């Protein structure tokens, strides 16, 4: 599949042909990465995760409850995309309301990992990653709240970037956890990710959490020759599978050979990150999803009175995982528990951020695993808590609002599945993250 960089040099006619070809491949594909084939705008086609609003598209967030809803406006990220020679083409499958790590909770069927159709593509941006890695999309937009861009990118063997919180507008992104969500690029390589990130990022007055940070083009300043100090987290890697550990060790060697300095660090037990995340995210999600009531849009169930309408609409319209998180979210906010759970978790976020801060006083980037294993077999994770624990490496980054990029570094010999690692940077230090990733990518020279 042509890269984004190259596609942006093509003429209108050539792009039309490319799009036709992509659509053909996508429709024929058995990945179920695309759940819609709508088009909006003109330019290089970009696949859009189905929780990002595009005018006149039936944007479902992977849920039954939004059947019948037609978005009447473009998300700012889409508007920005269109200003930069790109268009929105196709809706990517996802875990329902972005709650999940495998895309198995989508109402619109599972998506398969292009490297092994028996395995999950990861989640929640599974459709986006599977399509890019599977050669049926040039590039895609995903969203990341606890790892939902980075982890599917790692499982599928492509590049995924989560910006510093606030660098990409959330206006038009169906909210899951407001203080954690970010839209980001999922691409074939690091440079494409920088190009797509440049296109969608920027301050937005419609989003009160949009950072006022000055924007500089990352792609234009991409420098793979920069020598950086990179931390490796020894106690983290110990908790990962052998395959991951092996890939990690090789990556460290590659970074050293590229001239970077490796520094050894340790971080606090990830169980606190997981606990903090599942308190904060579910609390915010419970209230963000309360608007789905069948009154103004979406699928309304039968109900003889208003109360019945609410209960039936939501009980029939939401899947199990979403319901679990809404119940949990209301629990941690409810009277009597708020202090012990929600407020406590918010306080712990200071600890998490300070811990990163202390490490970044000494280094430029942190190299970390993205997931404790390669992509699991479809249907193999039953217990919600086990699912949550698999987010162990990605969620602290969202809790601290930091930028992180996941890129493929190798393959597991045994399963043939790709392995990805992430580079984490200081807040608003996007350039270093991309530079470090670019350097690593060139050194490793991973082939899909």
């Amino acid at each position, binding site marked *: 599949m042509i890269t984004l960089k190259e596609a942006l040099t093509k003429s209108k006619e050539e792009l039309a042909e490319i799009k036709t070809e992509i659509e053909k491949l996508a429709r024929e594909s058995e990945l179920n990465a695309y759940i819609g084939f709508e088009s909006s705008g003109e330019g290089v086609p970009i696949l859009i995760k189905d929780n990002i609003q595009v005018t006149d598209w039936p944007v479902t967030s992977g849920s039954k409850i939004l059947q019948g809803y037609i978005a009447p406006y473009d998300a700012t990220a889409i508007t920005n995309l269109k200003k930069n020679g790109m268009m929105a083409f196709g809706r990517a499958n996802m875990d329902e309301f972005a709650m999940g790590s495998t895309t198995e909770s989508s109402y619109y069927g599972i998506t398969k990992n292009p490297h092994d159709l028996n395995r999950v593509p990861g989640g929640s941006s599974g459709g986006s990653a599977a399509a890019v890695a599977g050669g049926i999309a040039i590039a895609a937009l995903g969203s990341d709240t606890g790892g939902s861009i980075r982890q599917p990118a790692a499982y599928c063997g492509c590049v995924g970037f989560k910006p510093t919180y606030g660098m990409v507008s959330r206006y038009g992104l169906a909210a899951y956890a407001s203080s954690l969500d970010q839209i980001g690029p999922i691409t074939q390589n690091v440079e494409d990710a920088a190009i797509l990130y440049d296109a969608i990022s920027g301050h937005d007055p419609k989003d009160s959490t949009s950072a006022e940070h000055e924007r500089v083009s990352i792609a234009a300043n991409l420098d793979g020759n920069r020598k950086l100090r990179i931390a490796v987290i020894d106690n983290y890697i110990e908790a990962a599978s052998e395959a991951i550990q092996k890939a990690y060790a090789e990556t460290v060697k590659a970074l050293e050979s590229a001239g970077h300095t490796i520094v050894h660090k340790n971080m606090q037990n990830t169980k606190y990150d997981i606990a903090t995340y599942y308190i904060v995210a579910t609390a915010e999600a419970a209230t963000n999803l309360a608007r789905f009531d069948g009154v103004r849009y979406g699928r309304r169930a039968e109900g003889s009175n208003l109360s019945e309408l609410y209960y039936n609409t939501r009980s029939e319209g939401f899947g199990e995982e979403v319901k679990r998180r809404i119940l949990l979210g209301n629990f941690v906010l409810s009277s009597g528990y708020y202090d012990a759970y929600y407020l406590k978790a918010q306080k712990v976020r200071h600890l998490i951020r300070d811990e990163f801060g202390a490490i970044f006083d000494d280094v430029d980037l942190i190299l970390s695993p993205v997931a404790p294993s390669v992509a699991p077999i479809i249907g193999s994770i039953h217990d919600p*808590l086990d699912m949550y624990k698999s987010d162990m490496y990605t969620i602290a980054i969202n809790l601290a609002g930091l930028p992180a990029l996941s890129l493929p570094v190798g393959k597991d010999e045994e399963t043939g599945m790709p392995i990805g690692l992430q580079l984490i940077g200081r807040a608003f230090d996007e350039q270093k993250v991309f530079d470090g990733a670019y350097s690593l990518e060139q050194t490793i020279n991973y082939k899909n």
Partner: protein
Amino acid sequence: MHIDLTVLEKLEKLSHLRIAESKREEVIRQLSEIVSYVENLSELDTTHLDASFSTLEGGTPMREDIPVSDTTAAPSILSHAPMSMDGFFVVPAIIE
């Protein structure tokens, strides 16, 4: 903290959700397990920390009081609404 049937019922009310009879025990078990897990935070000393946290600096942006009419969202939403009439959203009567 143990989640039991009473707690589940209260949460269902707050969430406007009804868990199917056949699933209630399982959901209670799952929620209990998760809640027990997240209680690990009590192991951390947070007494000196601020309960408000943000990754962003500064106050909320404030916009000037200048009207802008959106003429596209409502007509579109109303035309696709589950039930609408004369420009109203229609729901079954609220029973007090």
